[in-house]
């Protein structure tokens, strides 16, 4: 079975759109957007989008359900963390408190949504107001600074939030470059092993050249990004958190039974229930997870800003939702994946940064972002229509 070009275009529409957008900004910013520092900033500034979008994806999979409270929870949890650290409590205790706090918020919202059947939109709308208010209460309406070096370095704030170069390369961070090469090698080995496995058992396989193309494309982009980062200060801490979250959620959504249930509930809840799966637990799981990710999002946000403010996190929920939908998640649930989230988040990040470099006013930036989301969904709808 040969893949024709139209199929490839359809499957990877957003990847090609991303490439087009990058080329557009590369031209219109005289190549500035691809400077090492800008690539580094792109990753560090948008770490929260990846983390929150991964959590949001799980909610959306269960049936297009979204969590509007995410931004407020980020602020609330961040506020708690800042206050706790201000009292010189151990950093790791503070981190644990923030993560648990996020998860508890998830329990609260998830309980109403899954067991009392409050529509998610309304349950989380209530959370959006309530946790914003509680964030203000916790911080007493003031900004709280964070000075703990360990915290800032580990979670991507301050000037030294990079993985140190153990080889002290001149002008090129060797640790960073080596990591990049390792990542590509591991990826290639996994793809090849998968293929050999399938061959041995006589399963269907994608054509050989498509696997080669996949390794080449992923390998080239990863190496290129790590090369750029190595020319700057090395691997930013934010990237590590992004990687951890994406790998974990990629695994959960594709390899585990709970991941399967998320898709099944979103695809056909009644059939799933009659298959002996408690759909309430599935919703509950999705929202607890969202809470946990909001907790991590809060940590990354206050680290990046070296402090917490009652206005933090506004609109974060929309960034996460937009990333999911741009990445092809279905608004009625049951379809979507982590790969899409990555593409969606990067696309949003590139557009943000490209326009900032071009000096476009934030007001127009919002207009453009809005249009991009709409265009992405129109693409999705049209290509789905053609499928039928």
């Amino acid at each position: 079975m040969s893949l024709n070009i139209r199929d490839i275009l359809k499957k990877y529409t957003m990847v090609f759109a991303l490439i087009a957008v990058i080329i557009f900004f590369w031209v219109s910013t005289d190549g500035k957007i691809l400077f090492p520092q800008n690539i580094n900033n792109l990753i560090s500034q948008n770490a929260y989008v990846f983390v929150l979008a991964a959590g949001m994806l799980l909610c959306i999979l269960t049936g297009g359900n979204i969590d509007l409270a995410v931004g407020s929870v980020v602020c609330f949890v961040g506020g708690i963390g800042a206050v706790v650290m201000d009292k010189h409590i151990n950093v790791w205790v503070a981190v644990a408190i923030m993560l648990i706090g996020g998860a508890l918020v998830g329990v609260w919202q998830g309980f109403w949504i899954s067991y009392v059947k409050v529509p998610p939109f309304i349950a989380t709308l209530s959370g959006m107001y309530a946790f914003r208010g509680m964030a203000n209460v916790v911080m007493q309406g003031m900004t709280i600074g964070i000075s703990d070096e360990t915290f800032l370095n580990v979670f991507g704030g301050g000037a030294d939030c990079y993985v140190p170069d153990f080889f002290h390369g001149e002008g090129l961070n060797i640790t960073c470059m080596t990591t990049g090469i390792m990542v590509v090698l591991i990826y290639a080995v996994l793809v090849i092993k998968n293929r050999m496995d399938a061959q041995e058992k006589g399963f269907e396989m994608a054509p050989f050249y498509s696997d080669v193309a996949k390794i080449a494309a992923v390998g080239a982009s990863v190496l290129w990004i790590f090369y750029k980062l190595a020319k700057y200060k090395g691997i930013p801490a934010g990237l590590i958190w992004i990687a951890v979250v994406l790998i974990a959620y990629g695994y959960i959504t594709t390899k585990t039974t709970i991941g399967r249930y998320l898709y099944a509930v979103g695809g056909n809840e009644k059939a799933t229930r009659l298959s002996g799966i408690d759909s309430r637990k599935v919703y509950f799981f999705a929202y607890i997870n969202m809470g946990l990710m909001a907790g991590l999002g809060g940590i990354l946000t206050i680290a990046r800003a070296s402090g917490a403010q009652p206005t933090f996190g506004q609109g974060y929920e929309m960034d996460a939702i937009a990333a999911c939908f741009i990445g092809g998640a279905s608004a009625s649930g049951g379809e979507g994946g982590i790969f899409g989230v990555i593409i969606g988040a990067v696309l949003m990040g590139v557009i943000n940064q490209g326009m900032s470099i071009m000096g476009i006013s934030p007001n127009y930036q919002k207009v453009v972002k809005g249009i991009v989301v709409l265009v992405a969904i129109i693409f999705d709808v049209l290509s789905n229509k053609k499928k039928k």
Partner: protein
Amino acid sequence: MGKILLEMKNITKTFPGVKALDNVNLQVEEGEIHALVGENGAGKSTLMNVLSGIYPYGSYEGDIVYNGEICQFQKITDSEKKGIVIIHQELALVPQMSIGENMFLGNERGKKSAINWNETYSEADKYLKMVGLSESSRVLIKDIGTGKQQLVEIAKALAKNAKLLILDEPTSSLNETDSRALLDLMLEFKKQGMTMIIITHKLNEVVYVADKITVVRDGSTVETMDCHTMEINEDRIIRGMVGREITDRFPKRQNPFGDIVVNAGDVNMEVKNWTVHHPLYTERKVVDNVNMYVRKGEVVGIYGLMGAGRTELAMSIFGRSYGSDITGSLYINGEEMVLKNPREAINAHLAYVTEDRKGNGLVLTNPIRVNTSLANMNGVSNHGVIDVDKEYQVAVDYKEKLRTKTPSVEQNVGNLSGGNQQKVLLAKWMFTDPDILILDEPTRGIDVGAKYEIYCIINDLVNAGKSVVMISSELPEVIGMSDRIYIMNEGKFVGEMKAEEATQENIMACILQSGRGEEA
């Protein structure tokens, strides 16, 4: 020979990679009822979609000649203007709206800026009278039964000035009485000069109403039979549809169960004094004091009209997935069990194969592999991590065992035909390793060939010592497949008979008598 109203000449329609219709020719005379029969996927619906303009002119080859002129329909409204109205298998009514509102939806009476409600309802009532429906047109659709909804659809078509009415599986969700009433209505319309095309799987209906029968097979018209000049019976039609003679519509089992003496040890499942109330109107009894049992290796049929409470009985047994205030006791292998949810039912080796494949059975957006394992994820996973290789193997095994027609188990279930979807659904439940299978309308909406295969699967199951409870509203199927038959009416079991005693007549008599008993 009368005037030809419609002629479809050399229609060819290709979808990417598939030739759905290949040089199809169809002639329909004015004032006749023309039946279109064929297996699922033979191309009947595609042909009707071409005719009604769902597939616009230019997307197919060939000509449609209607009333002597060549038609080039771009959309449905074009064909409706000419009086060609199609009533689809799935009812297209808005449940929250009244009958009258539905009838003139998109075709509102009065001005664009102001709907004339008096005219709407008085006209609606006029059309309702024509179809013999004694409901006010102000009643909401959700408050009337499926049989009446089907009549509303027909009234709606009449309101569009239909000259050629196409009915796609009009009786698929109706019980025998309502079906018969609908067919009689068609005959009545015929007398008034209406031309109709009916697509159906139910061959007894074809024999009852049709003047001519066109058989479609693999995208081509095979033959047209004239019922007035030829001797037509169901076997003759089946031969045309499958291209071979089916000698037995119901495969024989090796050990017919009939004469084994009742032996308590052999009883696999028993239900005593089972009563179920409606989930919303909790004072209403949907299942009323039902007693039943099923032995190992036995097929027990439950026959009843639509709304008799059969599905509700099955679902309430299957982990209380329907109803409220359920009382009674359930014994599995002689042991009393309380099954609080579907999971406990599955663990007790019970399986419920739903009548509603798309709504309650399958996740259409997921591939066959995923659907096959959904009810038994433990069978393909380890501590919550899925072994995809194993899952794939399971799906392939069942695909081969049940002869599911698909290029790959990675195919989305939504792309399969009804018969193949049913096989995937059966595979899903067989993989849970059940001892007792409740099959709810296992052959609804699937073609003759696939039905036979499903019957063979049922036989294999009972030969392996499993028990099968088969719910069906097709009398020949219940009589042909069951060892023993329960007859259900209005929530109660009103009769029980051995297969060899059962005939269509005495089963219907049983239902009628119980109805009368109620009134007396």
